[in-house]
C-alpha cells in the first residue's frame, strides 16, 4: 500500500479540517469563470455598454432635457437587464457545458453531495452581479448630479437586482440541467429571457388596459421596472408600490428554491433526469408559479383606490413648486360633484401662464403630454382624482391652473367652467451635465477592466508551460 492519505470513514479527523465542498466547487468555478476570461470579458462588454449609454444619455440631456432622475432610472434598467443576461448565460453553461466538456463525471464520482455541487456552481454563476453593481454605481452617481435619485436607485436597484439577477441565473442553471448540449441550453435560456423582457417592451397603450396592468404586476421584470420608476422618478412611497415587489420576489424564491432544494438529487451525467418524477416536479413548480403570479395580479393595492369625493369643484394637491428646467412636475387634481344630481361629462383643461411676460400664454402642448382629461358622469358626492405631468421646459415664473368644463347639454346650451387654485411654478435653470464630464468614466472603467483582462491573460500565458526545476 502506498503512503497516500487514506480517505475513509475511519479518518474523520481529515474531514474536520477540510474545506466545505460547496466552497471548493465555488472557488474552482470562480477560477474558471474569471481567470478563464469568460466572466471578465462579459463584464468588460457590460461596462462598455454602460459607458456608451451613459454618454448618450448625457449628450441627449443637452437636447431633450432628460432629468437626472430619469437618467438614473434608465441606467438602472440597463444594468439590471444586462447583468441578468450575463448571469443567465453563465448559469445556462454551468451544467450542460460541463457535460459537453466531460468534466461533470469527475465531480459526480466524488463523495460530495449533489446539493453542494449545485450551490457552489450557483454562487459562481451569480458572481458577475456584485461586479456589475459596483461598476454601475459610478455611472448612476454621475448622472444623478447629486439628486436623491442616486441613493434611491442604489438602494432599490441593489435589492431588486439581488432578487432578479440570481433568479435568472437559477433559471439558466435549471435549463442547463435539462440540456445535454450548450447550444440547446443557451437557445432555451435566451427564449425565456426574451419572454421575461417582452412585457417591458409593450407600447404604452398596451400597458394601460386591464391586461397591461395585470402584466405590470405579474411580470417580474416589468414589475421591477415599474417599481423603480415610480420610486426614483415619481417619488412615490414604497407602501404604495409593495404589490410590485411580489413578482420578482416570487420568481426568486421559486427559481432558486427549485434549483437548490428540488433539483440536486436529480443531477446526473445525462440531462434526462428521472422521467415521470421530473415532469411531475416541473408541473408542480409551473402550477405554483402560475398560481402565485395570478394571486399577485389580483392583489389590489391601496393606490388603486385613488378616487376621492367632490363635484363641480376642482382642487390641486400642490400650491408652489420650484424645479429646474427639464424636471417633471407631477401633481393630482381632484374633481368633486357637490350637486345632488349626477354630473354631466366633465372636461378638465390645463393652462399655464407665464408670469414674467405680462401673462403670456404658454402652449401646454410643449409642456405636457396631456392638455385635457375627460371625466365621465359622476354620481352625487362622487369625486375623481386625475394625475398630471408638466415638464418644465423653460426657466421662468409660471402659474399652472385647471379649468373644469361641464359638457353642455346640447348645441343651444352652455355651461359654467370652474377654475382650480393655481400652482405657482418657478423653473430655475438646469445645471446641465457636461457630456464631456461623463467621458473620463466611460473610458476609465472599460480601460481598467481591459487591463485586468490583459493581466489575467499574461498570467495564464506564463503558466502554460511552466516547468519546475528538479
Amino acid at each position, binding site marked *: 500500500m*502506498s503512503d497516500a492519505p487514506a480517505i475513509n470513514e475511519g479518518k474523520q479527523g481529515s474531514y474536520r479540517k477540510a474545506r466545505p*465542498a460547496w466552497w471548493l466547487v465555488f472557488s474552482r468555478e470562480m477560477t474558471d469563470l474569471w481567470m478563464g476570461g469568460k466572466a471578465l470579458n462579459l463584464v468588460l462588454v457590460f461596462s462598455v455598454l454602460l459607458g456608451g449609454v451613459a454618454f448618450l444619455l448625457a449628450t441627449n440631456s443637452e437636447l431633450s432635457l432628460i432629468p437626472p432622475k430619469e437618467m438614473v432610472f434608465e441606467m438602472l434598467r440597463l444594468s439590471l437587464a444586462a447583468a441578468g443576461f450575463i448571469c443567465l448565460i453563465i448559469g445556462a453553461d454551468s451544467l450542460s457545458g*460541463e457535460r459537453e466538456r466531460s468534466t461533470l463525471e469527475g465531480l459526480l*464520482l466524488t463523495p460530495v453531495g449533489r446539493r453542494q455541487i449545485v450551490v457552489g456552481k450557483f454562487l459562481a454563476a451569480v458572481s458577475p452581479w456584485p461586479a456589475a453593481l459596483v461598476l454601475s454605481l459610478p455611472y448612476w452617481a454621475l448622472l444623478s448630479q447629486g439628486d436623491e435619485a442616486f441613493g434611491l436607485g442604489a438602494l432599490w436597484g441593489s435589492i431588486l437586482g439581488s432578487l432578479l439577477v440570481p433568479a435568472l441565473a437559477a433559471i439558466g442553471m435549471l435549463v442547463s440541467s435539462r440540456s445535454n448540449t450548450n447550444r440547446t441550453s443557451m437557445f432555451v435560456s435566451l427564449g425565456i429571457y426574451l419572454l421575461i423582457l417582452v412585457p417591458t417592451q409593450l407600447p404604452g397603450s398596451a400597458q394601460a388596459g386591464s391586461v397591461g396592468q395585470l402584466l405590470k404586476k405579474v411580470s417580474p421584470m416589468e414589475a421591477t421596472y415599474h417599481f423603480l420608476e415610480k420610486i426614483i422618478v415619481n417619488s412615490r412611497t414604497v407602501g404604495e408600490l409593495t404589490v410590485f415587489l411580489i413578482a420578482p420576489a416570487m420568481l426568486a424564491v421559486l427559481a432558486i428554491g427549485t434549483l437548490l432544494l428540488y433539483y440536486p438529487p436529480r443531477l446526473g451525467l445525462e440531462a434526462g433526469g428521472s422521467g415521470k418524477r421530473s415532469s411531475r416536479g416541473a408541473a408542480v413548480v409551473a402550477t405554483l408559479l402560475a398560481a402565485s403570479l395570478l394571486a399577485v395580479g389580483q392583489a389590489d393595492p391601496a393606490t388603486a383606490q385613488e378616487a376621492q369625493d367632490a363635484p363641480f369643484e376642482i382642487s390641486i394637491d400642490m400650491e408652489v413648486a420650484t424645479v429646474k428646467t427639464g424636471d417633471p412636475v407631477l401633481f393630482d387634481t381632484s374633481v368633486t360633484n357637490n350637486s345632488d344630481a349626477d354630473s354631466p361629462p366633465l372636461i378638465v383643461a390645463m393652462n399655464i401662464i407665464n408670469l414674467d411676460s405680462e401673462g403670456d400664454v404658454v402652449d401646454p402642448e410643449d409642456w405636457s403630454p396631456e392638455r385635457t382629461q375627460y371625466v365621465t358622469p359622476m354620481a352625487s358626492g362622487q369625486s375623481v382624482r386625475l394625475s398630471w405631468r408638466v415638464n418644465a421646459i423653460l426657466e421662468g415664473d409660471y402659474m399652472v391652473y385647471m379649468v373644469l368644463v361641464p359638457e353642455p347639454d346640447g348645441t343651444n346650451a352652455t355651461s359654467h367652467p370652474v377654475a382650480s387654485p393655481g400652482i405657482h411654478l418657478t423653473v430655475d435653470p438646469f445645471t446641465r451635465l457636461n457630456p464631456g464630464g461623463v467621458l473620463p468614466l466611460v473610458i476609465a472603467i472599460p480601460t481598467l477592466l481591459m487591463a485586468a483582462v490583459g493581466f489575467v491573460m499574461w498570467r495564464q500565458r506564463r503558466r502554460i508551460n511552466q516547468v519546475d526545476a528538479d
Partner: protein
Amino acid sequence: MRGFNLDGSTPRTPVLIADDLRKSYGKRPALRGLSFALEPGRVLGFLGPNGAGKTTAIRILTTILEPDKGNFSVDGIGSDQPKLVRGRIGVLPESLGLPKHVTALEYLVFYGGLYGLPPNESKASALRLLDDVGLRKRARSLIGSYSRGMRQRLGIARSLINDPAVVFLDEPTLGLDPRGQQDLLALVNRIARDRNVGVVLCSHALSEVETVCDDVVILSLGQVVAKGSVSDVIAQARGNAKRGAGVRIQVPPESTADALERLDGLAFVKAVEAQSDRSGWLRVDLEETQDPGADLRNGNKALSELLAGSVPVMSFETRGGRLGDVFLQLTEGVGG
C-alpha cells in the same frame, strides 16, 4: 457469491464484489446478471464488443447508475451507500474532461479537497502522485498545454488522490502512441502491485489486456460469456473450441509459396492458406485428434518441416492461444 481469478495464489478478501447486476433501458436489457469478484493487487480486464454492456456495468459499479437488480460492494461497503462507495473508488473515464485554465497541481488539490483532504495534505498527496505518474516537473503548467498522454496520466493521478481500494480505467490507452501505451500500462501494473489496489481495466486492445491483466471478464450482449484468470479463460476457450485447432506461421513474403507447398503435403495438416490480410502469414489447420497434446506436437512438426526446407520462420503462434482468439470465438456474430 462466487469468486474466481485463482491462479494458484492464496485467495484474499475481494475489494470488489458484483452479484447478479442487471439493468435494462426500457425493454432492452443492457446487463443480464453480472457477477464477479476482484482481489486487491490484481488487474481485471473488462472486455466485450460495442454494446456488450461494459459502460453500463462500469457506471453501475461507480454509482453513476443504479442497477435494476443485484448489488455490489467495494472494500466491504455495500452499493446501498453510494456516497461511501465513491470515497473508495477512483475512476478514469473514457472521455476525460479536464479544465484548461488550471495547473495539474491545482486540479489535484481541488479533487483532494472534494475527498475531504485538508489543503496541505491534499497538496502533498498531489505532488507525490504527480511524481508517480511522471508529471512532477510540469505540476505548475496549465493543463491546457498537456499532451494526450500527459492528460491520461493526470487522469490516473486524479483517480488515485483518495487512495482508493478499486480503480476503474476506461480505455486508458486510447489515442496514445505505442510508447505512451507501453508506459501507461506499466503504470497501471505498478498501481495495482505497489498500492495493492484492485484495478478494473476496460479496453478494446486485447493485446494490452493480455499483457497487463491477471483476470478477465468477457461480456457479450449484456451477459458474461467468460471470466477467470487470463490463462484459464484461454485454456477453457481452447477446450470448448469445436473446430479443429491450428497454428499461424509467419515467413518472409517471398517464401510464402515455398512454405505452402511444403506444409500442404504433411499428413497431419488438414488445410493451409496464406492470410490475405497479413502478408507472409500462413494459417495452418491441423487434423482433429483426441490427444490434447497432439496440436502442439503437430505444430512443432510443421515448424521443423519448414526449417528443414530452409524456409525462414519469423513468427509462430498457436491459434486459439491468444486472448484475441478467445474474444472473437466467444463474441462471434456480435457487432463490435
